[in-house]
């Protein structure tokens, strides 16, 4: 395996201080939320009951956090003989996943109305086996644990626990297998969760294919996060861009984007709803932007010269990330209409809480990169 090393450098930087300030502001809103209830600082209502927290922190946050899942697929399933090529970025990908998922899970403490009864969710005699949310919750909780195990080698290396590391490496494949199974399960279930809302979701998004599209989109978003994230990191910390890995990844991406678009449009035609694209309303507009953001990376990556250019790869990765983000936002917020009398626009407090979680990741990920052996070792 290729070795990793810490990036080193100062922990307290200007960005770190900036993100810490955002986190502090978030704390003020959190105090309000716990004293006066959810209604005091959000615009959530009985119609738009999920507001933007579950869509952004769970649906989008964990999809961005699918980098570890996507890279693990490439390394462990299709990587026979080629793993030396993908491997260096795997740890970086798992780090992004770690944050995407752990923060998503943590956000439930803020979002759940009756958070103090969270343990009831874990008690098997309460389980409702027809509930898709039950599958998502349990599977995600398990996966957060698996991610920390997948990341453990970096910590063990840092602590120089060699014996433990050696034992750990022997059984690591079991962890890896669960790390591949669980996201397949809960990412598809996240999509399936919206099937039960029926007519409340616009036919542009409502389909029984939501589970399948969600898994494919999660892999694309995770990969987009790794591509854009790594190029950004490499640019800031003056590291090699690893374009040879990224270009191989982006070839796989082209296949996936193509498959996603074929499924997406094929499904619309199959259900006879393709005409809604031209309805000229907010939904059709959102749909068009969402799909343009999927088509641009496909066009960029089609040229082999672009696949080795860090700038073009960064643009493609960012587009993939925002396209998937918008798709999720659309099928949870934009395209969702419980009944005509309900309206929703997120309140300041809601947005601040989301930003607070993002700020935590932006502050903590660089620290992890600097302290722990995560980034691929540079040769020079």
């Amino acid at each position, binding site marked *: *395996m290729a070795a990793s090393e810490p990036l080193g450098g100062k922990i307290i930087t200007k960005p770190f201080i900036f993100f810490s300030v955002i986190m502090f502001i978030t704390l003020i809103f959190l105090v309000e939320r716990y*004293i*006066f*209830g959810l209604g005091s600082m959000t615009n*959530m209502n*009985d*119609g738009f*009951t*999920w507001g933007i927290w579950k869509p952004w922190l769970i649906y989008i946050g964990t999809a961005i956090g699918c980098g570890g899942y996507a890279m693990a*697929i490439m*390394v*462990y*399933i*299709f990587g026979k003989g*080629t793993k030396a090529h993908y491997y260096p970025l795997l740890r970086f990908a798992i780090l992004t996943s770690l944050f995407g998922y752990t923060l998503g899970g943590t956000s439930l403490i803020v979002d*759940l*109305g*009756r958070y*103090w*009864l*969270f343990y*009831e969710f874990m008690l098997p005699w*309460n389980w*409702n086996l*027809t*509930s*898709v*949310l039950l599958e998502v919750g349990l599977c995600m909780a398990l996966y957060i644990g698996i991610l920390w195990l997948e990341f453990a080698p970096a910590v063990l290396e840092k602590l*120089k626990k*060699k014996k433990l590391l050696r034992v750990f*490496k*022997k059984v*690591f*494949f079991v962890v*890896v*297998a669960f790390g*591949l*199974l669980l996201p397949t399960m809960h990412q598809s279930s996240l999509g*399936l969760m919206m*099937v*039960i*809302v*029926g*007519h409340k979701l616009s036919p542009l998004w409502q389909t*029984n*294919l939501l*589970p*399948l599209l969600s*898994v494919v989109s999660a892999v694309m978003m995770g990969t987009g996060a790794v591509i854009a994230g790594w190029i950004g990191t490499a640019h800031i910390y003056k590291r090699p861009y690893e374009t040879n890995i990224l*270009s*191989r990844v982006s*070839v*796989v991406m082209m*296949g996936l984007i193509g*498959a996603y678009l074929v*499924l997406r449009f094929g499904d619309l035609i199959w259900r006879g709803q393709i005409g809604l694209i031209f309805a000229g309303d907010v939904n059709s507009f959102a749909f068009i932007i969402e799909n343009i953001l999927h088509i641009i990376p496909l066009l960029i990556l089609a040229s*082999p010269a672009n696949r080795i250019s860090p700038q073009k790869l960064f643009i493609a990765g960012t587009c993939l990330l925002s396209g998937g983000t918008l798709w999720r936002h659309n099928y949870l917020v934009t395209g969702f209409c*419980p009944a005509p*009398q*309900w309206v929703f626009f997120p309140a300041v407090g809601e947005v601040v809480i989301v930003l607070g979680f993002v700020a935590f990741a932006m502050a903590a990920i660089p620290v992890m990169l600097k302290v722990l052996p995560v980034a691929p070792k540079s040769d020079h």
Partner: protein
Amino acid sequence: MGINRRDFLKGAAGSGLLLAADASPALAFGPRTPKELPPDAVGILFDSTLCIGCNACVFRCKQANPHMALRPEFNVPIGGLKIHDTPIGLSENTLTVIKLYKHDGGHSFIKHQCMHCIDPACVSACPVTAFTKDPKTGIVKFCKRVCIGCRYCQLACPFVAIGFKWDEPFPEMVRCQLCDHLIPLGKYAACCSYCPTGAALYGRVADLRKEASRRLDLEYGEPYRFPVNHIESGRKSFRPAAKYYPNIYGDTEGGGLQVMVLAGVSPLRLGLPDLPDVSNAAVSEGVFKTIYKWFAAPIVLLGALVYLAYRNTEEYRKPKDEDD
């Protein structure tokens, strides 16, 4: 550059496999079998043509459910003061509400409340089984003891008939339970027992369905004895029949509802959603239960993944001194 055709094909084939593994159940499997109406299920028949909009049901509902701590809502200033309980919709303080819809120069009242679906989405969706459907009465009950406040029930409910106490630090969900706490006392739904005209009529769903079809068969203006309060109460209101829109809303809509609506216009024009005859719960569970039948697919997939991961981490398992 190291992109060769073989890798690309492998990648493409791999993604294809991943897709196929997921796609086949979703594409091939339809909704699960619909739920049946329990023979002694109780419900409400709301006849919009009889409703005079007196709001007695709204008031009595709050009075009959003290355990839910439903507060009055002062939304409309009357004579400069906000003193009357004037809810404008269902909420954490209002389990049923009468709404006025204007159409073609006329108007209709409609009673919004939990429709007690025969195949309820909330029961299917709740992860901790806080919602249950009574096997005898068919009433959809809610037990707050285990509720974690995830609000997936609200998202799933096609009628947006579940309220959440947004302004409380320790909130709970609130919804109509057809006054099931009054049944042991020999009483029934407060909204019906106080409805002066029989617009909201309580009774066995089977009886109510027969009553509804009888009304649809009436000629416009034909005198008819409309049962009042409870279909078995014996109290009748003698009056000419209005012109009915030929549909019992809730007979088949959404897999069938225990609260049904008759109106002079299409119920869809009275704020009720246009639901397919297959319930959303059946559609969702059809896909879900196929993917997770016997938990076989995940276990097989896990087996394959353990094998692949074992094969592809051969190098990694060997003890090496690279960490020194």
